[in-house]
């Protein structure tokens, strides 16, 4: 997972997204460098989830350009025109990045190990033994090797979210997207998930994390980006943004969460 090129992993250039008449993203521009950890903060409804979903092409953007690892997401440029990629290409683009959801979204009818190897075996056509071996080491990494044959419903929220991270890791993604991974958890379970994320950050995983955990952002993020009303208000190293916010709305938001 060591960055191999110096082009940004995520490059958003004036990204717009509207649902019908509601404009949710109104010209988001930002970059995430390879190996960087960026935390995305902002009040509820500011468009953070929508932006993450656009990066994964779970939502189609309405205007602007969005590139991951130098490739347009969901489109290709052909003679100066944008052409939609077919389902197969979109799927393989998605397989290169991983997303961790607020509600875990594990497959409840499959065991923990089956969850972790499902996509490597079915999507990437890896041999089952290989995917299983790596899957077990991913589970060990998140501290759940002994739960491999449990069903998700038998685990606590924190354990489920760690399985979701292991499932994401087993795809060997070059980028990980986290959408409020700890918001659905009881307070005493937040720490175990953040610990796993912190260790990923230390290993150089490229991460874009939507979170309300200011403590995590302060320690683990290389940069924080503050969104409000579908635009980027402010971005910079955590120390700078938290201690010396430039924008009034940033100050107002931070005064509520700090």
């Amino acid at each position, binding site marked *: 997972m060591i960055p191999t090129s110096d082009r940004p992993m995520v490059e958003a250039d004036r990204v717009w997204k509207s649902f019908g008449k509601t404009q949710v993203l109104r010209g988001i521009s930002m970059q995430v460098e390879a190996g960087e950890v960026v935390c995305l903060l902002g009040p509820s409804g500011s468009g953070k989830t929508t932006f993450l*979903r656009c990066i994964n092409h779970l939502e189609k953007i309405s205007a602007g350009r969005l590139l991951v690892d130098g490739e347009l997401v969901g489109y290709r440029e052909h003679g100066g025109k944008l052409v939609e990629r077919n389902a197969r290409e979109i799927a393989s683009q998605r397989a290169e990045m991983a997303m961790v959801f607020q509600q875990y979204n594990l497959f*409840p009818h499959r065991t923990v190990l089956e969850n972790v190897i499902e996509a490597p075996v079915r999507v*990437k056509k890896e041999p089952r033994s290989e995917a299983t071996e790596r899957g077990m080491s991913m589970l060990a990494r998140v501290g759940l090797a002994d739960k491999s044959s449990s069903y998700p419903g038998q685990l606590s929220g924190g354990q489920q979210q760690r399985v979701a991270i292991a499932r994401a890791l087993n795809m060997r993604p070059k980028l990980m997207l986290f959408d409020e991974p700890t918001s659905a958890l009881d307070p005493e379970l937040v720490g175990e998930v953040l610990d796993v994320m912190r260790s990923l950050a230390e290993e150089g995983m490229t991460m874009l994390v939507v979170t309300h955990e200011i403590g995590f952002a302060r320690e683990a993020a290389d940069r924080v980006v503050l969104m409000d009303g579908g635009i980027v208000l402010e971005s910079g190293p955590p120390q700078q943004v938290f201690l010396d916010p430039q924008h009034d709305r940033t100050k107002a938001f931070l005064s509520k969460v700090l």
Partner: protein
Amino acid sequence: MIADQQETIRTADVPEVKAEPVRHPGNWIGAVVVLVLGAMFVHTLVVNPNFHWKVVGGYFLSGEILGGLLRTLELTALAMVIGICLGTVLAVMRASDNLIMSAAAALYVWFFRGTPLLVQLIFWFNISSLYPRLSLGVPFGPIVVSGSSNVLISAFTAALLGLGLNQAAYTAEIVRAGILSVPVGQLDAAASLGMSNLMTMRRVVLPQAMRVIIPPLGNETIGMLKTTSIVSVLAMPELLYSAQLVYARTYQTMPLLIVASLWYLLVTTVLTSVQLRIERHFARGAGSGPVGTLHEFARRAFAHHARFRTPAPAGAAITGGR
């Protein structure tokens, strides 16, 4: 982990719960009434000679009846296979974002649910009066093969088409409800892992939808078992019609209806146990214990009745509180 805790509690010197259970005199009175009524019913079955149990026994395994039974089972199985396959396709079409596809599926369901099955059966049986010849070829173009409708659509084919196509409309609605019961987050997760739509349907959505689909589908199968008797209008000797053919000769109406009913009950019993088995298979991973079984429902609903307590199911790690 939790099992460990229970182990330590048991080995420690903790006083056992030995409380007097609450008395429920109403339950006792109810049970006695039911038992008395049941005894009266069995008594009349035995002493009333008009039931002609000898005749029932004599025909129960007769060739005519068994042939009818076989025909009934065959029709039920094949009609359900057609119904489930076509119904699933219709449900997936219905959920598609292609307007033509979903409208076509909706139209199909509207038509086949909206007209009486009897009419549909007679329609298929008499299709030759509308289309004397059926042919296969290029649309609006040359014909490849062709044959007389009367030859191609036998009474059996007409019965299968009628029952199967009708069943597909109902099954489509059942499968659709099942698909809708799967949280959309599952679709997001599958998509974000790079799974294709088809793979998502097969590996993620349908297996979870099964929990919702199987109980009504079991109901439909048992219903179909008896609905097949309607094909007697096409002069097909299935179970009921075979019995009717016998008593038309012998005038032993009641005993032969009992023969047929006993067979229907027997097959229903088998189908019910198959259904329970399938339900248990698809319940895996649901909730933290054996949720979804009526047994578990009763255990929780009547948890305060000491005598409803059931032994802990094997492998249920988190049942706790017993």
